[in-house]
């Protein structure tokens, strides 16, 4: 098989695939083609789509390869699809970040970091399949330990968990400027 044929077949398979397509799955279909050749062909395809500024791009996500729309076209795609995209609230995002970096983690452990009850948020995340129970912790009550799912990787365009942005060291943390509104405080003098 010519290299161009392989590339063409891969592109077709990527188009019909319902989720990220793994090298292994491609190998099962394209019997006899070496893994390395599959990988380099995918890289080529990725570069071609990128360089010719095509409307679909090939991204490596959640352990596989997937065709996704180009970010520059986001507004047009949204206009076409209509509807409101589900916005992720602050609480959801923070809880998800804690789970992503500290998994497997229990509800109570998340609560001790956030300082608030997270029951509702956890249920939302479970409903959206962004997290799942992965085991139970060997402590009284045997609480569930939660971890992230492949859907989490897909949502945040991550190849795998090692590609999470590095968590800042405690010493590096500086507080960013708050654009927040003034709070109606009584100043110290008034009290």
């Amino acid at each position: 098989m010519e290299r161009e044929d392989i590339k063409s077949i891969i592109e077709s398979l990527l188009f019909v695939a319902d989720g990220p397509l793994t090298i292994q799955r491609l190998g099962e279909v394209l019997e006899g083609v070496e893994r390395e050749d599959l990988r380099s062909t995918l890289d080529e395809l990725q570069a071609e789509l990128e360089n010719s500024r095509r409307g679909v791009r090939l991204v490596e996500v959640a352990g596989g390869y997937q065709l996704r729309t180009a970010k520059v076209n986001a507004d047009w795609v949204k206009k076409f699809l209509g509807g409101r995209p589900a916005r992720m609230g602050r609480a959801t995002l923070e809880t998800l970040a804690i789970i992503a970096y500290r998994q497997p983690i229990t509800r109570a452990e998340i609560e001790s970091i956030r300082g608030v009850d997270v029951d509702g948020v956890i249920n939302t995340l479970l409903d959206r399949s962004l997290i799942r129970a992965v085991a139970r912790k060997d402590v009284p009550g045997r609480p569930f330990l939660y971890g992230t799912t492949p859907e989490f990787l897909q949502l945040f365009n991550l190849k795998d968990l090692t590609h999470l942005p590095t968590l800042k060291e405690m010493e590096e943390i500086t507080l960013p400027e708050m654009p927040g509104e003034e709070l109606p405080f009584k100043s110290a003098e008034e009290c």
Partner: protein
Amino acid sequence: MTTRVQLEIFEGPLDLLLHLIKKNEVSITDIPIATITEQYLATLEVMQTFNLDVAGEFLVMAATLIHIKSRMLLPMADDEDDEEEGTDPRQELVRRLLEYQRFKDAADQLERRELLTRDVFVRSVAPAEEIPAPGFREVSVFELLTALKRVLDRLPKDVVHEVMLEKITMREKMSLLLDQLRTQGKILFESLFAEVTTRMEVVVTFLAMLELVKVRAIRIFQEEATGPIQIEAAAGIENAPAVLAMQDPEEDQHGT
């Protein structure tokens, strides 16, 4: 005269404290505890005035702040056991604030990525949502209970009193069900109970199934409203054994 009050909605007491620290332009590691406590309490008061629900955790933090403030007023004990006494009373709070800030930063970083269904899209499927297989609808709890009743009604109406001790654990039932799904892919709800002869076993099997739904190892579907209920493995099935393995055997044991 109208007073415009703008209140940000704080995620929690730590969030509020971080806000106050930023607003006062003070260092997180050297919090002027008296000032911050005062402003913290003032904010709670405002929240209460406007009937905002001040959750318990805000009050716990208020108590913590007051406690730290009072400890700061005490002279530092400089005797030998300065493990306890000599440490800055603010230390634990600072640690918590820094850790929380760390995850707030991480959340910001995640949000800046190319988000699926916000920045980028895939062909017709939105992976963030659980998409049922075409033509399938998710089964409601009531439909499940109706189906369970059918199974129970089918059991032989035994009038003979048999005495036997049979241990069926939910864990066993869970692994059994997962094994079945692994080999058959999809199974009918009713076939789950094909070889079940006692009420207790039906109940344990049913609970095992519910537990697997809860941990998202399986999904339950129906092709049409009155059609047969089907069970299939969810994406997370490979992790289900880990969940089972951790299941406390004693607590799920049932005998008949």
